[in-house]
């Protein structure tokens, strides 16, 4: 099982994703250089956080033109499991693999805080391990969802924005994967750290094989450093690859 972690010149969570996979999960990871056109037969492709090309214009605006992205787009179109975290989410939107855009945080400030997320779906390749066998899953719009997890955010441009039609489509097809919530699991305005529409923290593409999320599961994937609520996401991917 091999995770390919794309390195853009300004990626800075690439090493964190690498460690989450190798140290936290005990699986194999390779770095994929942005100028390369080879995914090195990775089972999962991760677009990590950072500032891919400085991102002075817009997060991800330039990254989507890099050579590796051609391969990533094709991989994703062919059903390959693709995870974009933070800047990776921005890139996925810019590249058209996910709908909408990420704009400046409502408060206009960079924010680095742990946030509570509701896992809206536990029947996806990215979230199956969040299903708690002992707790009967609630249902929400017909989809199973899991309780609240703690995962940090660290971004200045994470306000998920899309037109009403797109949002409706995302909601009605259950493609919101994570939502910002308060401790009680409610998606309130106060629990929304950046002003995202519908408290959206992460979304899936139509086929369900591409996930973009602003929070950083890779930062909460190593026991020795504290909470490890991000690890089930990576474990889910291992399971998904193993059973496919």
């Amino acid at each position, binding site marked *: 099982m091999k995770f390919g972690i794309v390195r853009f010149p300004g990626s800075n969570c690439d090493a964190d994703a690498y460690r989450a996979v190798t140290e936290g999960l005990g699986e194999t990871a390779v770095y994929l250089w942005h100028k390369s056109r080879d995914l090195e037969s990775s089972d999962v492709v991760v677009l990590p956080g950072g500032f891919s090309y400085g*991102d002075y214009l817009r997060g991800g605006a330039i990254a989507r033109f890099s050579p590796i992205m051609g391969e990533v787009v094709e991989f994703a179109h062919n059903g390959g499991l693709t995870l974009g975290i933070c800047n990776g989410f921005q890139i996925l939107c810019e590249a058209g693999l996910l709908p909408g855009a990420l704009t400046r945080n409502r408060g206009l400030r*960079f924010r680095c805080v742990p946030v509570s997320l509701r896992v809206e779906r536990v029947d996806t390749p990215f979230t199956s391990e969040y299903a708690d066998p002992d707790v009967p899953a609630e249902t929400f719009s017909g989809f199973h969802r899991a309780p609240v997890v703690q995962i*940090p955010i660290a971004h200045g441009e994470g306000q998920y924005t899309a037109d009403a039609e797109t949002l409706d489509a995302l909601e009605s097809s259950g493609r919101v994967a994570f939502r910002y919530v308060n401790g009680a699991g409610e998606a309130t305005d106060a629990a929304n750290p950046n002003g995202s529409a519908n408290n959206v923290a992460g979304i899936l593409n139509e086929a369900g094989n591409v996930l973009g999320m602003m929070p950083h599961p890779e930062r909460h994937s190593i026991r020795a450093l504290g909470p490890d609520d991000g690890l089930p996401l990576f474990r889910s991917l291992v399971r998904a690859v193993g059973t496919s």
Partner: protein
Amino acid sequence: MNHQPQPRPGDPEISPELVENHGLNEAEYASILAILGREPTYAELGVFSAMWSEHCGYKHSRPLLRNLPTESAAVVQGPGENAGVVSVGGDWCVAFKIESHNHPSAIEPYQGAATGAGGILRDVFTMGARPVALFDSLHFGTLDDPRSRYLFDGVVRGVGDYGNCVGVPTVGGEAIFDAAYEKNPLINVMCVGVLPVSRLIRGEAEGVGNAVMAVGARTGRDGIHGATFASEELDEDATSSRPQVQVGDPFTEKLLLEASLELISRELLVGIQDMGAAGLTSSATEMSSRSGSGIEINVRHLPVREENMTPYEMLLSESQERMLLVAKPGCEEAVQEVLARWDLQAAVIGKVTDDGMFRVREGDALVAEIPVRPLVDECPTYEPEARESDEVEAQRSRLDEIDPEALLEKAGGAARALLSLLDDPTIADKRWISEQYDTTVQTNTLAGPGGDAAVLRLPDRTRGIAISTDGNGRHTYLRPRTGGRAAVAEAARNVACTGARPLAMTNCLNFGSPLRPSVYFQLREAVAGMGEACEALGTPVTGGNVSLYNETGGTPVYPTPVVGMIGVLKDISRRVGSAFTDEGGEIWLAGVTREELGGSAFLAVCTTDDQGNPIVAGEPPEVVLEAAANLVEFLVTGAEAGVFRSAHDCSDGGLAVALAECAIAGGQGFDVFLDRAPGGDSVSGATLWFGETHSRAVVTAVPEDADRVREIGAECGIPIERIGVVGGAVCRIEGGGHVAELDLTRLSERYKSAIPGRMGSEPVGVAR
């Protein structure tokens, strides 16, 4: 070809006025004539001016700094390099340094702070270390002042955006708000990096004929004479004479960082240095001075951003994100390849020579030829008159007639005073700042901002380092020697609170004009005090930065030595935090409390004199060096033994504030009785609650460990007493004839809303 540099067409004539405008006095100019044996060219004058500025030449501080201890078994690289390096065990070393960007930030807070962070990052990665942490020590005017809010807002965004983009977590710092810094804020940034000892590289230019290369951003006209500017006092409205503001480009910095580390690990370089203050001039001459070589460059080969730049401008530009490197013979191409991989360009601009000369050509024309040694190492130094100001002496004795209890009454009683202190932005929660910083990128952060010191995991995954920056301008103002000692002692005990053993330190000396006898006195005394504490605590100084002329309109800032301390944690699983977490845990106070209310936050925040000004008076708490060392030993021993469940030192606001901070951090109330505190029965109530006597800490332990706590105290020579228990939703303090019973939520609310409440919920625009 000419054998002597000739004036370049268009150069101004060298006149006494021009010399003076370059910040050089007559005697200094005479030395230049003697060194050159002729009149300097305009470019040469610029070079001397920059290298002999206070910032580069340490004119007024070098003689004082000589007395600081700089050696220990752990020190791998002491002062004189881009950054200090210490061994932290195993194969691993830590490179670290602090630097000021005070004047640029006073003009343009966002870019000033951003480029400050950029500069210190380069100092660390040019040692071969990967930067793992930034710290920012900030001093501003009070937040009632709109300009101070604007500066504070801009600086925090600047540090944040830069560090966040480069991917280095900012894990701690300080933020002090005091009218003394209103016109002249202090922005000090510290960077810490980690390297395997085999990667260590220095800023050297060795090997005749080796290529000298300029890498990174192109050179523009920005920051010309920045070093000289940093060595003058801030002029209220001399906008025109200010150097062009430098704009940071963190993306290019990130490329430089990765490329440099790759070049170093592939062993392609002889030496590497940041083009920081005094740009190309200082990097080229310092590198060759360290190696006893010479260096020759041709400015025609320097990549520039603007047209028609003169050699003078190219030599003195402080454009950011540039580095100078010396390649190993035959490695130029490999160097170019690595840089190309990172989309960076490098230009060979010259070569190493062996004649001890800094030689600059523009095409065929020789524009400068200066012997390196005297230029770099023989900057004239001064030890001007030092005399304490009468005003300070008067302030010190002012408290003699005042009864502390009367002051406490005037402050509205103990509970009121405690709430006021928690609401003081200097003491209050700093989350408004630290949440704008990425604190967890690189996944090493075990303890970010909020505790006594930040703790990071080292690559071996068992060891850690703890970092803290500290200083107390108010104490230093009242008694500079004590303030110097205190900065070191406080930083060391903050590090020790986590269980880490303090190892070495860097420092930034932020003072007014040394030409003022009262300021030079402060500088001399503070440095001496720092040195004494370093000796006593076994924490040598591996480098630092001196920022003088921090004054406006003839009023200097408080003398503010800032210490950045590094400690080593043998086993990260034994790390101790400051929060009260265990309900039922017993609270102990370590260290004696003395009647020392002078210079306290209590006086400054809770009391006013007849004119309505905060009282900054009295003798600040003495730093008993033996007690300081013993407390460190106590904290480290208790942590390593796994006995302490929490540890937090007493500093600003004294014991009452320390207790409240532990409670707020842990979400647990407490019940304490202070009269039992060591020395508690012989001090006033006000002092018992709010005095800032050094070498004290609040620790907690489970009741079963009570005997162990006593034993460790006895072993380490630290008087300790059990003063209460953790638990509940109420914070109850009784002692010295006063009682306060406050809801934890109320305390917490005060503490957390102080800064956001003053800053508003939205960014402050560009207001001035």
